[in-house]
């Protein structure tokens, strides 16, 4: 589709990394995240180690409260692990930064900035001139097919449109990885499916590493190369499943044999976990 965007994007990344092709490899090494202390101590993530390969689309799947968002936040840099390290392309994560794009479940566009200004915000902070900023923003806006709404405020847009702008805003920083925290959770079912397909298109074009948190089994299977199933209390990865479904993926896939088998497997893990939690509460 948009060869310009892609080539600009790839050059920019190579330039940033001194000509090397660093493409967003994530290493999580022995990470534990503990909130509070004493009686209030809450182990959100315990002793987790995993590697996410460059360009991989990984879904972190689990019931609510299993620490999947916390794990994502440790990659984003909002949460510092109590022990262990998180590395992105061998650089230790020390705080949030523009090299890791973030898309939130809640609408997070700046309501006082227009759509164009929202997308241009990252480039502006990176020191681009106003001309460069608006040209980058326009490029990404064209990519998501929303040039017509450049000068409208987010409050005028539907939830789906806002999330598309949110994705464009994160990508406009030329990040190494795209971190998504249940980004389509608030959307209706139809919009959700459209957004999933669109996201896969973007991912296919850019080849960017995506870490996508969800509690929806269908969503995880439809999107991912690999699903990490997390269990609650204490949060840890209990299964690492390859999704060997052919791409590009179409919604019809949801009824195929392989999809259903994988779904059964995921649901089994999640159900076992939920039951455990349920019984613990009951006891």
């Amino acid at each position, binding site marked *: 589709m948009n060869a310009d965007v892609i080539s600009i994007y790839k050059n920019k990344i190579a330039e940033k990394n001194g000509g090397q092709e660093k493409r967003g490899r994530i290493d999580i090494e022995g990470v534990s995240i503990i909130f509070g202390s004493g009686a209030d101590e809450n182990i959100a993530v315990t002793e987790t180690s995993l590697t996410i390969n460059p360009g991989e689309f990984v879904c972190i799947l689990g019931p609510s409260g299993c620490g999947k968002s916390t794990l994502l936040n440790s990659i984003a840099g909002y949460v510092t692990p109590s022990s262990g390290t998180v590395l992105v392309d061998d650089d230790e994560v020390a705080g949030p930064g523009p090299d890791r794009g973030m898309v939130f479940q809640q609408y997070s566009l700046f309501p006082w900035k227009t759509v164009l200004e929202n997308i241009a*915000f990252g480039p502006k902070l990176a020191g681009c001139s106003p001309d460069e900023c608006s040209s980058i923003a326009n490029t990404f806006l064209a990519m998501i097919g929303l040039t017509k709404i450049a000068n409208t405020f987010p409050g005028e847009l539907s939830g789906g449109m806002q999330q598309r702008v949110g994705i464009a805003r994160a990508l406009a920083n030329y990040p190494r990885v795209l971190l998504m925290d249940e980004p389509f959770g608030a959307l209706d079912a139809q919009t959700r499916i459209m957004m999933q397909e669109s996201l896969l298109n973007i991912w296919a074009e850019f080849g960017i590493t995506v870490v996508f948190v969800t509690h929806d089994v269908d969503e995880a299977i439809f999107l991912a190369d690999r699903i990490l199933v997390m269990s609650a209390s204490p949060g840890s990865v209990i299964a690492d499943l390859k999704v060997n479904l052919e791409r590009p993926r179409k919604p019809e896939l949801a009824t195929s044999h392989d999809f259903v088998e994988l779904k059964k497997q995921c649901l089994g893990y999640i159900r076992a976990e939920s039951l455990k939690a349920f019984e613990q509460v009951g006891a």
Partner: protein
Amino acid sequence: MNVIGKSISIDRQTSDSPVEKPGAGNPLVTPDSVKKPASHSNAQSLLLWFSGLQLQSFFIGTLSLTVGIVLWYLATKYNFNHFINFENVPSPLKVGAAFMIQLGDPEFYIHITVSIRRILIAYTIAVVLGVAIGVIVGRSKLARAAVIPYIEIIRPIPAVAWIPLAILMWPTEESSIVYITFLGALFPIILNTLHGVEQTPDVLVRAARSLGASKFAVFWHVVLPAALPSIAAGLAIGMGISWFSLLAGEIISGQYGIGYFTWDAYSLINYPDIVVGMLVIGGLGTLSTYLIKLMMKPALRWKEKQR
């Protein structure tokens, strides 16, 4: 980069761009999730309806004021005196006549300009200090712990209660009046700024940080704009209260000013001028508050358009 998205237009009826090719190869193009506002004719009728509503409320407002003036007139004409006494209250006609006479008197304009000048000085200082204090207190726990007790104790003290101390503290009468006016405007501005800063959505701060914003950039691009609607409300309330306080100051001391004019008329048993003074105060207060709201409007354009 000539690929413009599929026809995602705000108003589908006007989407006539030939460049648009539906479908293929545009990631993130979802044909639904587009807000579909009312069609053109609907929008127009909506506008008509709205302006009709405005016209209607304007008409009702005028009618209501007229009724009030007529009741006032009747009460003074028939010397209404049951619990409330209208015998010494000037009639609207007398007040109107007195107002016309004052309009021809140059001194009347001096009273008004002196009051406006005091408001401008006091209000400007209150805005600068109030917003600064509100922001600092909202962002720093230390500042908050240190400043809030002062605000809690001083805020309930009415402007009139400050008058004796203000006269003793400040070198000139003028500065004591400005001080009292300033205090009136200060607290609503501080408190509204503080409130606005505190309610900055956390997700926006996190988003800004992940886009590479420094602490200052977060403050400038997120905290301040998020607080702006609340600050604007504080500025409007502060303006109203500064008039309120100015009058208290002017009644006790000073040689000029619209408050002095009103009180002077009372001392001289010139009852119509009392009401002239009161109405001028009301008019100036309303006008200045309106001007503040008008000035803040461009900065809050995004707020109006929210669904």
